[in-house]
């Protein structure tokens, strides 16, 4: 039986129907999601001249899953710039407005102009359509000469090569999860998805197109369900992270917070906003206390030097005691144990958020987080103990400037310790509440499992003793004193939230969100994040967890005020003047940031070089107050600075030089290093 059926019309109908499905599926606020793209497999055989191969479409082909469509755009003085989601923070200009949209996708009225996510599918449908037509055409030929026969053989051979390559790419596309038998079932019309479909008996490309069509229909239905599901709740929340302090920001349309006053950051760097002034105050406080700390360290037999020798020893002793007690915590208290419990409670609770099971589930989830914290506490105690040992052994200059960056590491480790230790005293109350809630859930097996999980923690709490908080507090106090306020960032366990609340919307009621950075009390270097979450409240499924992260800066040429801790000396004069001494300098530096940098531009932005002027307090003569001024250069946003200046005091030697570090940046680098470790 030769393949002579006229399929072109049928294929055309399928192609049109498929496209219509794509187009209608794209409408609304939802879009298909694609995953990582893969390079197409190279053809095993040379492609024919008239190739209609999918040109990598199969490699890019993914079957979409329903998701919320949204995009964030920075509307800046120099144009509109898309902000990528779920990636590293990108720089945005402090004068910009961040605009969140839930776009309607309408560019889908013809092949080639569909939305990008759908293009590989549209290309594949087109390819299947052309391949089916080509196969029918070649099969229907009746050559009348040797030349026509030769041409027929060449065309058929080319089609065979394309078929082999198509199957190779279908198999290598991991997201499709197709094996050889499944491909054979699709081509042969035997796939379970084909129930009741009008199949071709001799043209596999028709069946492939039909399969893709059916899969798309399934996705379209899912998108439609999601778009109309009132159980799906969407929220948009924005936060500012400034020097370790986190606060919620107002987003128009998505919360009831009041809009802040209009405070654009001055591009010259000469008129700091209140938010930037806070940053400068923090930098100044840290620079000054570090100056005092270093002065004390440099003093021979100074009191602080004695303290430095003694305090870590005491802290180490207490930490060792705590570490010994923490070993009683069972390491086998695994996530599986809680998973079984919480799954069962979720089943019992159903959709009733007020049921005893739902309440117990909430308590148990927090309890589980506490258990994780206890395990982290063990790690942080061990880290701190090791760091304290190193602090004792290191020279003062190594503490701050050494490659190990011990001060910064210890500061980071201490903050984690504080964060966990301050939460621990709430555990006994939580256990009590869980024990009271258990009898209300009428499931004896579950009650037994919950009791067993809590027993280990109860035992642990008994072992660490009632004086845990006191002991932890002593460590915190001693290390804090030792490290100095210069190197410990403010520990914030809660988020500062303005008066008002966030709004929750359903998918049919999404509105654009607008965050005006000029009214958000942001300072240069702040991290501003926007979180979009869509949760199906009926199933608990998190449909859309999207995070946009930005770092506030200024694009183009701009000035930035800063306060630096410096080590300065006069270029000539008596030993008192030429000795390196700790001081503080205030500066205004001018930088240039490239928008959308490439190659060397990225390196330039990474270096963030600055040139400016400074005013320094000095200690090179006998005057009670010594001031100097001059030039300054900086790299890595002031992480490293250097400069020269003129001392205005009544000394004979006026010229001086200095080097310095921005300890705030240094500490943040240290914290990152600690986290990575």
């Amino acid at each position: 039986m030769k393949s002579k059926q006229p399929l072109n019309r049928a294929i055309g109908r399928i192609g049109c129907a498929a496209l219509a499905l794509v187009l209608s599926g794209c409408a609304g606020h939802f879009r298909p999601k694609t995953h990582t793209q893969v390079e197409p497999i190279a053809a095993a055989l040379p492609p024919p001249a008239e190739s209609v191969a999918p040109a990598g479409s199969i490699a890019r082909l993914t079957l979409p899953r329903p998701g919320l469509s949204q995009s964030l755009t920075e509307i800046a003085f120099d144009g509109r710039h898309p902000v990528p989601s779920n990636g590293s923070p990108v720089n945005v200009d402090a004068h910009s407005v961040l605009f969140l949209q839930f776009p309607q996708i309408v560019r889908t009225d013809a092949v080639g102009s569909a939305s990008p996510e759908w293009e590989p599918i549209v290309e594949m449908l087109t390819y299947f359509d052309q391949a089916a037509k080509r196969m029918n055409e070649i099969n229907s030929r009746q050559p009348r000469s040797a030349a026509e026969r030769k041409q027929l053989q060449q065309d058929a051979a080319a089609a065979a090569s394309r078929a082999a390559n198509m199957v190779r790419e279908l198999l290598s596309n991991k997201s499709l999860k197709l094996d050889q038998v499944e491909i054979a079932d699709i081509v042969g019309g035997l796939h379970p998805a084909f129930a009741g479909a009008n199949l071709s008996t001799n043209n596999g490309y028709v069946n492939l197109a039909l399969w893709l069509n059916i899969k798309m229909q399934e996705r379209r239905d899912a998108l439609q369900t999601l778009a109309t599901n009132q159980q799906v709740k969407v929220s948009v929340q924005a936060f500012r992270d400034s020097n370790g302090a986190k606060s919620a920001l107002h987003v128009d349309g998505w919360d009831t917070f009041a809009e802040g006053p209009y405070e654009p950051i001055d591009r010259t760097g000469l008129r700091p906003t209140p938010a930037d002034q806070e940053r400068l105050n923090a930098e100044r406080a840290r620079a000054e206390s570090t100056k005092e700390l270093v002065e004390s360290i440099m003093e021979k037999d100074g009191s602080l030097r004695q303290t430095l020798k003694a305090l870590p020893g005491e802290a180490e002793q207490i930490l060792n005691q705590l570490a010994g007690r923490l070993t009683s915590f069972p390491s086998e208290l695994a996530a599986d144990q809680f998973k079984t419990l919480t799954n069962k409670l979720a089943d019992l609770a159903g959709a009733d958020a007020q049921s005893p099971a739902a309440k117990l589930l909430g308590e148990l989830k927090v309890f589980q987080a506490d258990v994780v914290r206890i395990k982290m506490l063990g790690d942080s105690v061990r880290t701190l103990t090791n760091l304290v040992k190193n602090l004792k052994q290191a020279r003062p200059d190594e503490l701050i400037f050494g490659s190990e960056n011990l001060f910064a590491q210890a500061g980071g480790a201490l903050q984690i310790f504080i964060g966990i230790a301050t939460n621990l005293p709430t555990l006994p109350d939580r256990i009590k509440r869980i024990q009271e809630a258990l009898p209300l859930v009428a499931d004896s097996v579950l009650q037994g499992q919950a009791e067993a999980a809590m027993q280990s923690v109860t035992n642990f709490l008994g072992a660490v003793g009632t004086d845990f908080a006191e002991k932890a507090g002593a460590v915190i106090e001693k290390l804090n004193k030792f490290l100095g306020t210069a190197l410990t960032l403010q520990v914030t366990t809660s988020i500062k939230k303005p008066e008002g609340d966030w709004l929750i919307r359903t998918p049919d009621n999404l509105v654009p969100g607008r965050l005006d950075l000029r009214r958000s009390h942001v300072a240069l270097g702040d991290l501003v994040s926007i979180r979009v979450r869509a949760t199906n409240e009926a199933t608990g499924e998190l449909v859309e967890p999207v995070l946009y992260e930005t770092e506030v800066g200024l694009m183009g040429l701009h000035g930035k005020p800063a306060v630096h801790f410096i080590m300065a000396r006069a270029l000539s004069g008596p030993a008192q003047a030429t000795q390196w001494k700790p001081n503080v300098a205030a500066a205004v530096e001018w930088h240039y940031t490239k928008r959308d940098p490439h190659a060397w531009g990225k390196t330039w932005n990474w270096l963030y070089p600055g040139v400016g002027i400074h005013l320094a307090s000095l200690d090179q003569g006998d005057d009670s107050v010594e001031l100097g001024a001059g030039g300054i250069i900086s790299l890595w946003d002031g992480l490293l600075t250097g400069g020269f200046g003129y001392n205005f005091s009544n000394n004979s030697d006026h010229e001086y030089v200095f080097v310095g570090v921005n300890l705030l940046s240094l500490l943040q680098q240290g914290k990152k290093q600690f986290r990575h470790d």
Partner: protein
Amino acid sequence: MSETLPPLTAEALEADLINEEFSAYLYIGSAADLGWKFAQTAFKLVPRLRIYLILDRVAVAKWAGNSNPAGIVFGWDDKVYRRFDKAEAENLQLVLDIIAEAMNT
């Protein structure tokens, strides 16, 4: 075109093989075999390809050689291009690659 031997005769098969307007793939086994399923897949993806299910191995002894093959690939004439053992015939990618090679030769 998909045919089964028998009822097709060896003579009719030979006549088909010398037809330069078609290439051919013989699968020697039963209709329930995975190898035959893949032969049918190839038929539905490759134009001008004829496939044959050979139930009587003796009838194709002329092309089978001594290796007791499960599949035999022909180009545009009756010369054997490649013989497959059972495992090879149950590899769809290999079957398609070799058929394409035979047709391009």
